[in-house]
Structure formats: structure tokens, C-alpha cells
């Protein structure tokens, strides 16, 4: 607890120091343009503060920095905090390459996303559309902790062709101590030859366990106001679990989902969505279906009213539900939101046969820099308790161009 408080204090002091320096520094020393944003979210269960800092230097446009840190009290007894992002980026203004150093989430190609403290470098040959990306770093441990000898590295090589086709191959290797956790390799592809057709897919294969770990594909067709998407998702638990987990060696039954999603822009203010999918895990077969309609209350789509229905049927996870929602912009600065949901499980837990939930919220923009919102959330829990929570958000942002 003491350690956590100390860390939270350090983060707060650091953030305040940063803001103070920025505001008080002579104009000539400031990064410009500069963007600061701070969100404070209070709830009856867990107040959290989030600070987002971004800075660019107009004298050195090839350099910028970004930081996101949070401090808060979670539902667990201790006060916690951490930095999510803390990076400095240097880039070639012509787009021939960039280097990023610090803490960031490395997302690239078909291999799994990694939150690392490390470095990523990208080089591009503009004439041919070829890119090469390499990264290395230590996987993030909570609260700036360290695990000696944990390291990850990898890269991606990609090519853009005809302006419509982009494909690449990526590789990732993770170590814990002296052990290799996984060696993942996979291709990725995006193909959008026309405005009405596009395809994207990726697949990953683990060289250690010699099995596919992840494969996703999406094919979308757009004809007038209708967008139709067919998708397939195949995931192995081994990909999602830490490779040190014994669950990764139980037999690893993959989960496959395939379905169809439709979106119809039925009228300038009316949108309809429908999704249906079949789900297979081992011998178990099930699926889900969702439908939603949303009607805008004005041409700017600031206000809306709509409903959603859902049916899920898989193993013991079976339920039906519906949700109605509305957002009414009372004025340019003031808006009210209301949502209500009712879920009926096929096999009730406890004595409660339905799980109702409702939320009432108001948002008020005090000034261009200040934005506040408050909400009351009421629900019936699985274990037959009625709960009411309050949520408050205050956002302050500063943008200096």
C-alpha cells in the first residue's frame, strides 16, 4: 500500500511538474504546438485520473513526444498508478523512416500486440513502397517493475503494390529468462481495389508448438447504402495466454467464429445493423445474433434514439436481451443520455430471472477547455443484489497551436 501510494504521489508530482514547466516556461522554450489533456473519472467504485500529454516542436518538426499516465484507486484496497505510454519519436519528414523510443504498445502485422519498454525503427523506400520495421524491448511489468532477462524482438517487412494491395510478413520472439516463450510468424494482407470491395486477413503460426495460433479474415462488399461483411476468426487459447501458463499445454482447443454482418444506411438519419455468427469450440457448437437500429434526431447526428436486441446461445452461456438508448442534445453545450437494458438468462442464477440495467447521464461543456459529465447507473447483479453507482468525469484540455 505504502509503495503504491509513493508511486502514485511520484506520478502526480511528475505530471504537475510537467504541466507547471510548460505553462511557466518562456514562450521561446515551449514545445509548440502543444496539447495537454487530463481526465478525472470518479465512480463510487474506483476513481481514476488520466493525464495525456503531447508535444511537438515547431522548430524541430521531426521530433515529438507523447505520454499517458493514470493514477487511481481501484476496487482492490491499494491506490495504484502507472504510465501507459511514454515515448519520443524522431521521424524523417519525407516519410522515409522513424524511430520511437520508450514505453508503447507495439502493434504490427499478424503477430500479437506487445506492450514494451523498448525501441522501434521503421525504414521506407518511397519509390517502391517497401517498408522494413524492427523492434526490441522488455515486456512491460506493472508499476515500472522489471523482470530481468525478459526480452522480445522481431520485425515486419511489407510492400504496397498498385496503391490497392498491402501485404507483409512479421516475426516475434519472446524470452523469459533463458527460455523461449514463443516464436510467432505470420502474413498479413489488405486488398481494396475498388470502393465497393475490400479484403483483409492475417494469420500467425507458432514455431515452438508447431500450430496455427490465430487466423482472421474479413471480406466486405458495399453496394449503395448496404455494407455486407463476411468474417472468420480462428483463435488458439495458446496465443492469448502467457506461454508459461499450464493451460497452454492442456490440448488447446481453438475457438472458431464465422459470420455475416450487415449495415444498412436506410435513410439519411436511419442506420440498421445486423450480425449473426456461428461459434465452434471443440465439440461445442453455438452462436449469437445481434440487431440494432439507430435514428438520428438531427442532421448533424448529435442526438439519436434506438434499440438493440441480442441472442446468445453457446454451451451454458445462453441469454436474450434488449437495450434502448437515446441521446438528446438540449443545447450546443448540454446533452442528456439515457440507456436501459434487460437481459433474460436461459438458466437464472439465484432467484433473479432478469438482469435489468439503466444509466442516466448528462454532459456539459463549460468552455472550450472544460467538459464535465455525470451519470447514475443502476443494476441488478448476478447474485441478486441491487446496486447503484455514480460516475463523474471532468476533462480539461489545452491546445496551443
Amino acid at each position, binding site marked *: 500500500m505504502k509503495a503504491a501510494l509513493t508511486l502514485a504521489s511520484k506520478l502526480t508530482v511528475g505530471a504537475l511538474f510537467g504541466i507547471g514547466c510548460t505553462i511557466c516556461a518562456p514562450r521561446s522554450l515551449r514545445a509548440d504546438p502543444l496539447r495537454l489533456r487530463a481526465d478525472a473519472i470518479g465512480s463510487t467504485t474506483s476513481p481514476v485520473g488520466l493525464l495525456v500529454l503531447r508535444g511537438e516542436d515547431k522548430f524541430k518538426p521531426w521530433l515529438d513526444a*507523447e505520454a499517458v499516465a493514470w493514477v*487511481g484507486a481501484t476496487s482492490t484496497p491499494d491506490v495504484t498508478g502507472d504510465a501507459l505510454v511514454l515515448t519520443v519519436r524522431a521521424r524523417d519528414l519525407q516519410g522515409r523512416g522513424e524511430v520511437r523510443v520508450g514505453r508503447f504498445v507495439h502493434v504490427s502485422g499478424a503477430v500479437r500486440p506487445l506492450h514494451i519498454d523498448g525501441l522501434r525503427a521503421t525504414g521506407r523506400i518511397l519509390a517502391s513502397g517497401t517498408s522494413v520495421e524492427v523492434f526490441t524491448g522488455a515486456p512491460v511489468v506493472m508499476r515500472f517493475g522489471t523482470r530481468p532477462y525478459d526480452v522480445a524482438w522481431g520485425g515486419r517487412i511489407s510492400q504496397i503494390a498498385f496503391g490497392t494491395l498491402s501485404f*507483409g510478413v512479421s516475426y516475434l520472439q519472446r524470452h523469459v529468462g533463458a527460455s523461449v516463450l514463443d516464436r510467432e510468424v505470420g502474413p498479413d494482407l489488405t486488398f481494396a481495389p475498388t470502393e465497393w470491395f475490400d479484403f483483409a486477413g492475417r494469420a500467425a503460426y507458432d514455431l515452438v508448438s508447431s500450430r496455427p495460433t490465430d487466423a482472421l479474415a474479413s471480406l466486405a462488399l458495399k453496394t449503395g447504402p448496404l455494407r455486407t461483411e463476411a468474417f472468420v476468426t480462428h483463435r488458439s487459447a495458446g496465443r492469448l495466454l502467457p506461454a508459461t501458463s499450464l493451460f497452454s499445454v492442456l490440448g488447446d482447443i481453438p475457438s472458431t467464429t464465422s459470420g455475416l454482418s450487415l449495415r444498412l444506411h436506410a435513410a439519411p438519419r436511419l442506420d440498421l445493423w445486423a450480425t449473426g455468427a456461428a461459434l465452434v469450440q471443440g465439440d461445442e457448437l453455438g452462436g449469437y445474433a445481434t440487431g440494432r437500429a439507430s435514428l438520428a434526431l438531427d442532421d448533424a447526428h448529435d442526438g439519436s434514439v434506438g434499440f438493440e436486441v441480442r441472442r446468445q446461445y453457446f454451451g451454458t452461456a445462453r441469454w436474450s436481451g434488449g437495450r434502448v438508448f437515446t441521446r438528446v442534445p438540449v443545447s450546443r453545450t448540454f446533452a442528456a443520455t439515457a440507456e436501459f437494458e434487460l437481459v433474460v438468462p436461459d438458466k437464472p442464477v439465484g432467484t433473479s430471472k432478469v438482469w435489468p440495467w439503466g444509466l442516466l447521464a448528462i454532459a456539459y461543456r463549460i468552455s472550450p477547455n472544460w467538459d464535465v459529465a455525470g451519470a447514475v447507473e443502476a443494476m441488478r447483479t448476478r447474485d441478486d443484489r441491487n446496486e447503484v453507482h455514480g460516475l463523474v468525469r471532468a476533462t480539461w484540455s489545452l491546445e496551443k497551436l
Partner: protein
Amino acid sequence: MARRVPPHKRAPLTLALLILCMLVGACAGILGIKKKTDAGHPFEHRKHTVAGINCLTCHGPIKEATENAPITLPTTQTCLTCHKKPHDARDCNGCHGDQSIREGAMAARKHLKFAHKRHLPAVKGQCVPCHSEAGSVDPTSLRPAMAQCFSCHEHKDQWATNDCAGCHRDLPSEGSRPATHLVHDGEWLREHGIRAAASKELCSNCHQESMCASCHGKTTAALPWKLAVGDLKLDRLHPGNFMARHPMEAKIGGGLCTTCHAETTCSGCHSSKKVGAGTGAKSPHPVGWVRAVGGSHGTAARLDPVSCAACHGGAGEMLCVGCHKVGAPGGSPHGPGFASKLDKKKDLPCRLCHVP
């Protein structure tokens, strides 16, 4: 030859069609099909242009406007230089001019690096080639389309590398989306992982590192949807009473929870709320789940290890090793046909059980 439908059978169909047409007509305004009539009308640019009035007569300061100059909307005083006897004492802009067109122009001034001073000599003082809508009877926007910029400028390199900073001050905060942009609604939460794989550079035009980290970062407690308190987000990841549904959602998610949540998230919350595994807490598992020898958990885990992983993602070492060590009563946890290139004496998790 098609058989004619008797009139008495056509009547219900005709009536139904009539009612449907009437309903659509009645709802046209609500659905946005009917043209709005209550808003202010656009400024009469066409009338002025046809009368031969040069744009700079009203927008004079624009010829010296640099990248950081304010927007040059004419004031009532500007109008009065020609319209000596106004028909109304009120501010001209109050009625003459559509607010949405003005806001579009102000947004362009704020978000784009554009100097009229530099462009006017190149187009010989002619505004209409770019602002062609000014000649329209009923313009919806006077902001030139991006394609208009590309008709003179070639930004091949920037386009190829998705480097938009040459013209856009800050696309992420701008929040604008070209008409041909990817659709980000409906099932985008599911789709984004597929489409971002090969198009990261496209995404980074609008989204910073913090966007990925707010979900995929392993140390966050700030749930992204909470940041949007007061907004209505239809594609929220955990909508409504997710707390009541989460065991069922986790089951169909295929272990997907661990994409965003740290391994300790489940156990931490269950322990603090005295629900689920933990000292003194009640277990969510049925009676007989774990017995001195066996229990139903082994069969369930083999059938559906994904469900175990949804809550016990990183705890396999602690939970299983006690019983499933080589020589321990739990025996081998491996499924049929299990294979691995890991060194069972050196690598994790093998060595937890295979090294005495």
C-alpha cells in the same frame, strides 16, 4: 401470358402500398429524407457573383491572409458599404448565411495549413475554381473538396506514406473522415484487429499510441468507455450490465479477455468482492470441481481450456502445478497428440513439472 389479378384482390395490396407510402411520407422529416426548411438559408453568393461583384470586395483581407490569419467573414459594416438602406436593423449574418457552412469554414481555418495569400496569385485572383459551390443556388459547403487541392498539387510521396501533416495541422484532433474512409461503426471493435494488421500507417494518421495502449496496455485500470461518460457509444466493448453477463461473454470470447486485461484482473476483483477463488471466498465452480483425486475440473478443462483461461490466464502455474507435477497425484495434464519443441528441462512452463 400473365394472368390478370382481379380488382377485388388487388385492393388490399394497393391499400397496403398506399399506407406504406403515407407512412414514409409522414416520417420523411424524421428520417432526414425531407429537406430541412427551418434552418437559415445559405448566403446569396450566386446572386452576388452573377452581378459581377468580385469576391475580394467583401472578403478583402483574404488576399493577405497567411497560415495563421483569422477567418475573413464579412461583417454588417461590410454589407452596408453597398446596401446603404438595409431592410432590417439586425445583424446581416443572423439571417443571411447557413451556420453549418460557416462552421465548416471555421473548422477548415482551424485544422488546415493554408495561406490564401500564397494561392491567390497562382489562380490569378479567381476564387471560384476552388470554391465552385459559391456559384451554386443552394450550396451545402463552400469548403473545397480535398480532390480540388490535388488537382494542382501532387503529393505523391506524402500520399504513399500517409503523411498528411503537410496540410493538416493535426488529423487526430481534427476528427474528420473523408467520405471514402473506413467505416468505424457497427462491428468495428471486432474488425479493427484484422484491418489494422496491414494498415498501421493508415491508422496512425488519426490515432496516437495512446489509442492502442488504452486497451492493449497491460497496466491500465481506466476502462476506455468510462472516459466517454455522457456520450452514447453504440459500439462500446462492454455495454449495459456487462458485470452480470461477464462469465457468459467470457465463455464465447475464446479467452479474448486477456487481450486487454492483465492476468490478475479477474482474481483481484473476485477476491475483493468475496466472489470466486481466494481465501475465504465462495467459489463459482460446482461442488466436486476439485477433489483429493481428480474431480470434474479435469474433464471440463480439456473440453474447454479457453473458459479456464478467461479467469485463470496467468495462474496456471500456481493452480495446476501443485497436483500435476511429474510424480504428483494429478498426473499428466497434456491432451492427446500434444507436441512441443520446448525443452522440458529448461523452458517454461515445462520445467515447472518436469524438473524435480
